[in-house]
């Protein structure tokens, strides 16, 4: 692989209590590209991407060993502030989770908590982020409305806009389309493809076609172990491991 790695796990182990969920994971996500994480349900995909922005820190009774590097710097270094890390490594969740605020306030949320008060600047960033998330035209006349009034697919794009507004470097998606309809899914996939010109994207999906459509690289996880990693075309056409082939052809999982 020639591309520079933006965020990578080295010998990563993760435990919920005594349950060993990630086992010696080595995985480097190349910069400004889309990396898909696939694998059967319960194999640790969500756990893995939640370690990348230290979201698991807030879950009691967890333990992590190994290292995660963002631009070569260990994210568990005492100098690395988890709050600042999460601003740099954004996340979009499986279920759209708009806040019960107006559309505008949702997108402006991240800026406001970082101290931005200037109205003009907020408006500018909200518009830019909504445009990037391909939602601007649908909501530009109703920015004051509550975000709950949007459809599921719109809510998910709003959550993407909200994540973009704080200018992260990496965006993590955890099965972003599993709770929305096929048409909305197509739009989100389209969007993810365009994001990679500016951002490094990591997306978890249990939908093989989706991984094939949107990603440049694919990692296949089984029972907390990395089975195979490579560029998406190779993984889907000429996988090295037998297990990978069986999984992507739908023989199990």
């Amino acid at each position, binding site marked *: 692989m020639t591309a520079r790695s933006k965020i990578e796990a080295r010998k990563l182990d993760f435990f919920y209590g005594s349950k060993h969920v990630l086992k010696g994971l080595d995985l480097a996500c190349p910069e400004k590209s889309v990396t898909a994480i696939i694998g059967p349900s319960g194999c640790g995909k969500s756990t893995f991407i939640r370690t990348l922005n230290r979201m698991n820190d*807030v879950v009691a009774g967890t333990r992590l060993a190994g290292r995660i590097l963002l631009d070569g710097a260990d994210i568990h270094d005492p100098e690395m502030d988890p709050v600042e890390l*999460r601003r740099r490594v954004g996340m979009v969740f499986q279920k759209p989770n708009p*806040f*019960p605020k107006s559309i505008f306030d949702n997108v402006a949320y*991240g800026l*406001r*908590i970082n101290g931005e008060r200037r109205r003009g600047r907020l408006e500018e960033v909200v518009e830019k982020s909504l445009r990037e998330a391909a939602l601007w035209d649908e909501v530009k006349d109703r920015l004051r409305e509550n975000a709950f009034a949007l459809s599921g697919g719109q809510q998910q794009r709003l959550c993407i806009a909200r994540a973009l507004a704080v200018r992260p470097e990496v965006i993590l998606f955890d099965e972003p389309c599993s709770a929305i309809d096929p048409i909305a899914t197509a739009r989100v996939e389209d969007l993810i493809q365009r994001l990679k010109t500016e951002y490094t994207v990591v997306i978890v999906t249990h939908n093989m076609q989706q991984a094939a459509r949107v990603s440049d690289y694919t990692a296949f996880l089984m029972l907390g172990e990395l089975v195979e990693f490579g560029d998406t075309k190779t993984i889907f056409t000429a996988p090295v491991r037998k297990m990978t082939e069986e999984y992507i052809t739908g023989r199990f999982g």
Partner: protein
Amino acid sequence: MIRRKSVAQFLGFWALRLSVWLVLGVLALLLYDIIRRGAGVINWEFLTKPPRRGMTEGGIFPAIFGTLLVTMVTAVLAIPVGMFAAIYLNEYARQNRFTRLIRLSIRNLSGVPSIVYGLFGVILFVNLLKFGTSILSAGLTLGLMTLPWTVTASEESLKTIPAAYREGALALGATKWQAIRTNVLPYALPGMLTGTILGLARAAGETAPIMFTGAAFSLPFLPKSLSDQFMALPYHLYIMATQHHDIAKVRPLAYGTALVLVGMIFGLNLTAVVLRYRLRRRRR
């Protein structure tokens, strides 16, 4: 078979309906009786003047005033402390056996009889802290009694806020406190306030906790500071109903007092409902 099932449904339905009627009926009867016998004595003088001639004439203003004042002291203790304790318990404390034990104790405290709080208040506030029999002692005693209710109601309210609001905020680079302040508290507040005000309303009607800690039989003057004794509606009512030397003569005034007390508590509860409704709507 079908007949048996529909008979069972019929009986079950009527059992439920009768229970509701029973509860409402007793309540209606009680209110009707109080209003019928009390409404006649309520007039401007009754609400604004002190009792005269050994309570057989005049009004109940000092008791209204005292109850308002002592309820404010209760609120000052119970609202912030109850809310902060709930926030700590629900958002910050590690969830282990110790916190479960604390939570269980708080639940149990809300079931402790109010006379026990009264006696505890005498020991702690009146004697140990030397606040004397005063509005302060009585208000703090009522505050202690109310705290388990406010903590529990506030925590229940916090629990209804989805974890996704907290995680969503954290994922955008919010600190934990920012996430709680901007994305949890605003939505939990209506429920927290409602529970708290209901607790206050309950405290405002209590006699036992204030009887030994500050409420007076009768006072020639209104209290001038928090370290003065005071008259209170529930205690005044208790005296007129059971302790007076001429119970028959003060009976109408006692009914009037009961009506005012019920009215005040109803007003507090109504405030809670309206407040919750308003805050909910503003957030939508």
